[in-house]
């Protein structure tokens, strides 16, 4: 390994003075043979000087190699030397062909991204890496990157984008598989070269952030749980309120209606009492209607907390929120966001719920299916709207069901309550948007919704 790292320029730096020394030595010898003592002496001094320089350079180089080795092995951080030249060349070829948006391109062609990933080679890792990864030695790592990065990894696409953009620094979190099959969350960072040659030898640092990520996930789950229980509590109180507010006029209506029937059924019908009972029925019906109107405006104002919202950020947070579920079901999310997407005015919590619901539905639809589970989330501008698309590779939706899936209590899953999509529709429509689904049988399902874009001032 050490010899292979000898750069051509550094080899020349040692060779030139050495050649010069040889030349000078030869000149001194010729001068002495020809009887010129002084030129011979001068040439000999020169030769000695050059030899000394050459020796010094060689010493310095050996020391540099040793320093490098020491830094690589004992730097206290996991280091990986990787060859990304095949990927850099592929990105270059794509750019020459006029493809610049790598995110969009590889989101549309996940199989090409997978193929490229298998062409990244890990050349060397330091001992600390082996220890951190729980491997007996370095040997377990040398080879293609895709043995280490699982299919669900989101970060490879970020490499492609960074390389395509000519970024000086790459940094991202990845979830990797240890040789023993357990998982590790790592923060990877690398200085990206600016020459194609440089991509043959990229040094990547890795920091184990598994514990940090677990804490972060627990915090997020706790937050989600608090939000959920707050909603459930509110819903419980609300249900009790509705029950009471609506039941009272209903109790009065049925009471008066039955009274009216009895007044009329008498041997001598009491029309005065019957008419009065009917007037009460009308009055109490109007009261019941007013209760519903009041409740609607109450719920409407209490739940909606609108603000300008960046859907890209909302989507990223939603992915983070369900990262564990996605990973457990082996789902790879490919997020494709157009540049300069306008904001929307929305309740961010509600819209995040919609995203979470649609993505989990998509992941569940692919459960148990062989092959990669690709879930594509695409955000784009469409006229005055921001358009969101969630596409899965599941069995799709029967055309009979397609028109009914947004109805409350409609579910095709045995354990499903059938409220998820109904709530999604309610959320989206209350924001002035639309939601719908499309499906070609056997070709997955696509859920789309659009929200009005915030008008630029």
């Amino acid at each position: 390994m050490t010899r292979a790292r000898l750069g051509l320029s550094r080899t020349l730096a040692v060779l030139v003075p050495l050649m010069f020394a040889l030349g000078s030595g030869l000149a001194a010898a010729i001068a002495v043979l020809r009887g010129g003592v002084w030129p011979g002496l001068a040439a000999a001094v020169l030769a000695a000087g050059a030899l000394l320089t050459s020796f010094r350079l060689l010493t310095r180089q050996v020391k540099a190699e040793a320093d490098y080795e020491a830094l690589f092995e004992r730097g206290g951080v996991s280091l990986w030397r990787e060859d990304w030249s095949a990927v850099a060349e592929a990105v270059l070829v794509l750019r020459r062909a006029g493809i610049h948006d790598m995110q969009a391109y590889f989101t549309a062609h996940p199989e090409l991204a997978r193929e490229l990933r298998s062409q990244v080679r890990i050349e060397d890792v330091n001992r600390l890496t082996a220890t951190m990864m729980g491997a007996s030695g370095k040997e377990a790592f040398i080879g293609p990157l895709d043995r280490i990065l699982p299919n669900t990894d989101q970060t490879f696409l970020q490499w492609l984008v960074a390389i395509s953009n000519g970024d000086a620094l790459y940094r991202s979190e990845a979830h990797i598989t240890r040789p023993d099959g357990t998982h590790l969350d790592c923060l990877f960072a690398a200085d990206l070269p600016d020459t194609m040659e440089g991509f043959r030898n990229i040094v990547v640092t890795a920091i184990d952030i598994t514990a940090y990520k677990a804490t972060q996930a627990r915090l997020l789950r706790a937050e989600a749980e608090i939000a959920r229980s707050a909603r459930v509590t509110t819903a419980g109180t609300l249900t009790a309120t509705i029950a009471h507010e609506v039941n009272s006029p209903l109790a009065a209506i049925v009471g008066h209606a039955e009274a009216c029937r009895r007044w009329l059924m008498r041997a001598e019908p009491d029309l005065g009492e019957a008419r009065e009972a009917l007037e009460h029925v009308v009055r109490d019906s109007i009261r019941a209607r007013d209760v519903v109107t009041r409740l609607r405006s109450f719920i409407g104002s209490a739940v909606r907390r609108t603000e300008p919202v960046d859907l890209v950020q909302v989507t990223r947070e939603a992915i983070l929120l369900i990262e564990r579920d996605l990973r457990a079901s082996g789902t790879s999310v490919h997020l494709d966001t157009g540049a300069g997407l306008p904001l929307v005015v929305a309740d961010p919590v509600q819209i995040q719920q919609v995203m979470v619901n649609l993505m989990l539905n998509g992941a569940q639809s692919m459960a148990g299916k062989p092959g990669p589970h690709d879930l594509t989330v695409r955000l784009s501008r469409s006229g005055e709207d921001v358009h969101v698309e969630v596409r899965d590779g599941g069995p799709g939706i029967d055309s009979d069901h397609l028109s009914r899936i947004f109805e409350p209590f409609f579910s095709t899953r045995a354990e499903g309550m059938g409220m998820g999509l109904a709530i999604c529709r309610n959320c989206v429509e209350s924001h002035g948007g639309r939601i719908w689904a499309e499906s070609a049988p056997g070709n997955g399902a696509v859920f789309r919704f659009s929200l009005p874009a915030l008008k630029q001032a």
Partner: protein
Amino acid sequence: MQDHLIAIVDDDDSVRVALTSLARSAGLRARGYASADAFLAEDLSPFDCVVSDIQMPRLSGFDLLQAVRARRAELPVILITAFPDDRVQQRAMRDGARFFLEKPCDPDLLVTRIAEAVGEETP
């Protein structure tokens, strides 16, 4: 049932008016009270049956039941609630309510229950 006197206790005006009207249409005499206090301020001896809501401000239907049991244990009390969970029902029956009904109740059933209550009391 002609001469039986029924007390209807409910803080909700429209429900009270409706149940009073219902009782009268069934040939009973009925008096409405907007609170348990108002009813308990009365002499209980002329009444044959009490129909009371459970959820009311100040004194609840349970308080009313307890007071009636203490003052005139043989007076049947029918409790009605818009929040019919098992614990409420169990408590109503344990405390000695004659019947327990869910609100809005089937008016026919209420009339039947009242008839049963007063029939049992005055054979």
